């Protein structure tokens, strides 16, 4: 089904209803569901979470927009609830974390390959290699703390090997900022990609901040503290690629378009019938929001939404294994570091980041320690010899 962002009416706001029962659908099966269904659920929770975060910020700065923002935001909050509550109770916070990192790898890889702006694509690849390493570190933790193989969550789609070492990802704040796209010249897909990745990374940061204290083990607590700090850097990076001169109404419009694009992408790939129906329903809801916000935009900015939005959507996000692309990026760019907004070889990394990192790692590196000598093997480290032998 083709979507026309400017014309499709979707479900009008006043016909978007929920009940408590409707908000709490039966969750997915951790064991039986395809990993990409979990990936989509996690990402869409992040997209809705960003919708709320943005709309609250906007309300705090724009008295005149508070009523329409409150109206749309209530729907977004209920949508986020329905989506996030699809995760099952038997999926532990650490297993869910593995899912979060799979999102960060496979979704970022898809965005990076489709991104038309070479610099933004480079930024995405830079972040990709760091989240790739997080999957490896958390997988080591899951194996060494609980004896669980992370591949029971990732299902073979995603390599579990080191990326840019987490210990080297800690940078001075100045080296996390990037150049922003130009709102006048950037292609719509660049704007959608930027909002998508920012939403995903922000919810990842919030998730680790929420669940870090849930762990009893000191190494787990330190690892969550360390990787949450990197996710904060990633939020800093990704929000800085967005043109800060866009008006509030323009940003709202783009947020709604991003939600449409993401639900459309989910709907396109989803094979789980019950979950697909949710994506279809919420695609219609978001089209309804977009129509509503287009009117707000016309009044607030006195501009035509067609100046900002394309009529048709770009190719959907590719929910599939991007193993070869990730390996290529790993091979080519693992030694890149940041110098301000530029990417440089690690031999030219600024002193400020080296000093910052040295200080943070002074008492040791939890990410190094947790994975020291660890290698993924079917069934986990304890079964390594047997699993590799069987697979050979």
């Amino acid at each position, binding site marked *: 089904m083709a979507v026309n962002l400017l014309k499709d009416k979707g479900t009008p706001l006043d016909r978007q209803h929920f009940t408590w029962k409707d908000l709490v659908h*039966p*969750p997915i*099966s951790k*064991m*039986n*569901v*395809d*990993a990409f269904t979990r990936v989509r659920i996690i990402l869409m929770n992040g997209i809705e979470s960003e919708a709320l975060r943005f709309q609250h910020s906007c309300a705090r700065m724009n008295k005149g927009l508070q009523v329409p923002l409150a109206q749309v935001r209530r729907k977004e909050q209920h949508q986020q609830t329905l989506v996030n509550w699809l995760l*099952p*109770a*038997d999926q532990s916070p650490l297993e869910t974390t593995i899912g979060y990192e799979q999102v960060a790898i496979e979704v970022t890889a898809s965005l990076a390959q489709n991104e038309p702006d070479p610099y933004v694509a480079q930024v995405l690849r830079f972040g990709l290699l760091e989240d790739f390493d997080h999957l490896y570190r958390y997988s080591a933790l899951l194996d*060494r703390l609980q004896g669980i193989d992370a*591949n*029971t*969550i990732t*299902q*073979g*789609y995603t*390599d*579990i*090997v*080191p990326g840019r*070492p987490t*210990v080297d990802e800690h940078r001075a704040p100045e080296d996390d900022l990037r150049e922003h796209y130009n709102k006048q010249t950037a292609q719509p897909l660049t704007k959608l990609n930027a909002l998508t990745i920012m939403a995903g990374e922000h919810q990842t940061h919030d998730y680790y901040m929420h669940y870090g204290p849930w762990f009893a*083990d*000191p*190494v787990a607590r*330190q690892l969550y503290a360390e990787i949450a700090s990197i996710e904060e850097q990633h939020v800093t990076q990704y929000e800085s690629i967005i043109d800060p001169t866009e008006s509030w109404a323009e940003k709202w419009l783009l947020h709604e378009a991003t939600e449409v694009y993401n639900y459309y992408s989910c709907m396109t790939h989803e094979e789980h019938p019950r979950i697909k129906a949710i994506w279809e329903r919420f695609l219609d809801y978001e089209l309804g929001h977009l129509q509503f916000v287009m009117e707000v935009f016309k009044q607030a900015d006195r501009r035509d939404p067609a100046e900002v939005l394309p009529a048709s959507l770009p190719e959907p996000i590719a929910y599939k*294994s991007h*193993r070869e692309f990730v*390996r290529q990026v790993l091979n080519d760019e693992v030694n890149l570091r940041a110098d301000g907004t530029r990417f440089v070889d690690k031999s030219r990394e600024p002193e400020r980041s080296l000093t910052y990192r040295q200080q943070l790692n002074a008492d*040791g*590196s*939890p990410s*190094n*320690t*947790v*994975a*020291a*000598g*660890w*290698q*993924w*093997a*079917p*069934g986990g480290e304890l079964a390594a010899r047997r*699993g*590799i032998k069987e*697979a*050979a």
Partner: protein
Amino acid sequence: MKPPSSMGMNRTGVDMSPDLVEEMIRGTQAVAMAREATTTKTLSDYRSAYLQDAEPIGTVPMPGTLKGAAKAGVQKLMGRHAEVLIDKLGARLAFERTGIRLYDALLAKCMIRTDEAGDVPLDDLRQFRDAEARHMALVWDAMRELGADPTAVTPMADTNAVASIGLMQIISDPRMSVSQSIHAIHVAELADHDGWELLIKLAGQLGQDDMADRFKSALTEEERHLTTIRRLTERICLTEAGV
């Protein structure tokens, strides 16, 4: 609902995606160099500092009332580690209280999922639930006799609460079957039974003979719970296996 052991599209194992996993293994071996240890600090090193410096998870509450201090049982505890008994009493009390909720949830599930609960002796479960309630009252009164506060969370009660989180997660999850929920009750009853044995021994050693005698009646009932649930677990499993 399908029986829990029915075959289906479980995707967690490597045999479900042999080609993908083969690629993963190839990729893992290609970067095997990276697994050379990059740090001299071990996981044990990390944990040891915290283990050495850790504060206790909590302390046993001081008796809140001195009214009972003159009683014979309290006198016998003078100069001995009364806090150990109070801690274990608090643990038993909390466990019994949670046990009532576990049985309530299990009974509710069995009442709805009658197709799965054919082998489950519901009257026995109701009796067990009521017994847990009596045991709770028994421990409550025993704590009051010692001047201890039965509403407080003692460290061992907290330990039991942490250990029990998974049990309630199983029984309260609608997707978990009756037999999976019975497994959770089985685990609870195993711990409960041994908890009572230990408590009786401790109370007796600390001169609380009356208390220990009263607790023995609870242990007799707990033995019946455990035996019944153990046999039920076995029967359900064999029925599912068609033998």
